[in-house]
């Protein structure tokens, strides 16, 4: 089989996921033999337009991004969202709950109209996507695993487990028992529970599991000393967009 041609693109993001891709070379330099990277602006000047697999980092946060997204969708056989910004809108979507004008003015003052922007969205809200590699940032082992899946001709698959599963596989003392709080019970695993392992509660960067029991978790958070503001803050670091979607769906039903 010919080496698949892959390209990386980024929209509103910190480029940490692409850096993680670069980092993955540290343990897997053979990646360069397995695929042909034709576009990766952050790390290379060569630029090829002929690619089969497009990894897109970043959320769509201004009208001007949509044309480029459509163009990528057209050229690529497979489009894969790379990281929380592309997958969930990421931290960029925090502002979606705030009045947009207010946000722009707060940062740009009377020059706010110079800078085009609108609520930040995951790329799946603009173009159809084939798979996601979640996380903020992505996990480099998961990225390599995803590449092996793609080389095998199948889409990356992430089991629908909550983070607690991986946390307990590691035998961690639950951070709730250490006086902190955690979104592990409602968040999709695959990160090897890295945050609880390093003593911090999960912030939900990989998005929700398929059937999260959010009301029950809210009760747990309240029991652990959080007021409404804190609970909302916790649930909107990465989950703003998904939660707004769930709320909208609830409203419709």
């Amino acid at each position: 089989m010919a080496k698949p041609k892959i390209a990386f693109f980024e929209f509103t993001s910190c480029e940490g996921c692409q850096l993680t891709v670069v980092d993955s070379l540290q343990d897997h330099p053979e990646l360069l033999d397995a695929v042909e990277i034709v576009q990766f602006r952050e790390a290379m000047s060569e630029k090829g337009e002929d690619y089969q697999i497009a990894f897109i980092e970043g959320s769509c946060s201004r009208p001007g991004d949509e044309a480029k997204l459509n163009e990528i969708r057209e050229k690529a056989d497979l489009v894969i969202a790379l990281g929380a910004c592309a997958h969930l809108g990421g931290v960029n979507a925090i502002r979606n709950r705030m009045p947009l004008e207010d946000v722009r003015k707060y940062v740009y003052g009377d020059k706010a109209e110079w800078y085009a922007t609108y609520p930040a969205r995951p790329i799946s809200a603009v173009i159809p996507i084939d798979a996601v590699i979640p996380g903020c940032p992505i996990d480099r082992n998961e990225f390599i695993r995803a590449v092996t899946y793609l080389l095998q001709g199948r889409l990356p698959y992430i089991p629908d487990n909550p983070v607690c599963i991986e946390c307990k596989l590691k035998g961690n003392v639950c951070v709730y028992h250490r006086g902190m709080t955690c979104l592990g019970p409602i968040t999709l695993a695959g990160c090897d529970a890295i945050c609880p392992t390093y003593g911090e509660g999960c912030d939900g960067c990989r998005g929700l599991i398929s059937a999260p029991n959010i009301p029950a978790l809210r009760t747990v958070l309240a029991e652990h000393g959080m007021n409404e503001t804190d609970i909302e803050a916790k649930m909107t670091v990465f989950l703003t967009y998904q939660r707004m979607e769930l709320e909208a769906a609830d409203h419709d039903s």
Partner: protein
Amino acid sequence: MTTLLKETLQHSSIYVPTIARITAVRDLTELEKLFTLELPHHYSLSHRPGQFVEVSLMGVGEAPISITSSPSRTNSVFELCIRRVGNLTNALHQLQPGQFVGIRGPFGRGFPFERFRGKDLLFVPGGLGLAPLRSLINEVLDDRGKYGRITILYGARSPQDLLFREELAEWQARADVDVQVTVDRPDDTWGGNIGVITTLFKNLHLHARNTVAVVVGPPVMYRFVLMELLGKGISEGNIWFSFERRMKCGVGKCGHCQLQHIYTCQDGPSFSYADIKHLEEAL
């Protein structure tokens, strides 16, 4: 213990498969292919109809697949009918004769066909359910004299989805088998029955006391067919199913196929209705 199992145990782990060679691949429909496999040193699989093997491709995964060939027909080779639905099955569909897959098994209890002797048999395959049933049907047909009347009611989604069409035609051609086929969605060429499988029961006459019914199909089909069969007066012990559950080991360890205290992989996958009717979650 079968020879293959002995071979497997030589690897010192029940989870290590034996490598089997694909000798033929045939398209049955858009979604299903028939694979003929050969074990090393021409070992015999020595299976019973209704048993399954765990098929694997290294690096992709493993899945339970019923053995569709009848032990009465083939000895050194066996057949699997595989529907393309996901990771492993997609990858299997890419394979060509001469390539290899991993095999463990055969597992499960299979159908107790010796106990069916002397009875009338009613086979009710729905969709892919014909794959496991074909093994039993051919076993029975190859020993035709030992059984009473044989009826096959086969339902598929559309004419294109019908499996084993040539064999169906052969069975239909036989005077000693009554075969009826229905499809949910007919096309222009279809002249046969239309409707879900239960519609075939309307004109069905059988000696309820002396009939064993064997039903294999998707989970949704079971309840409806069961009602028809009980309605016809067939006894609970004479109604047989083959269950599909998620399975990760095939040997009663991984817990996925557990149905109350029963492990589908070991205690089944074939069960009589009498066996399981008291079990919540069974049907």
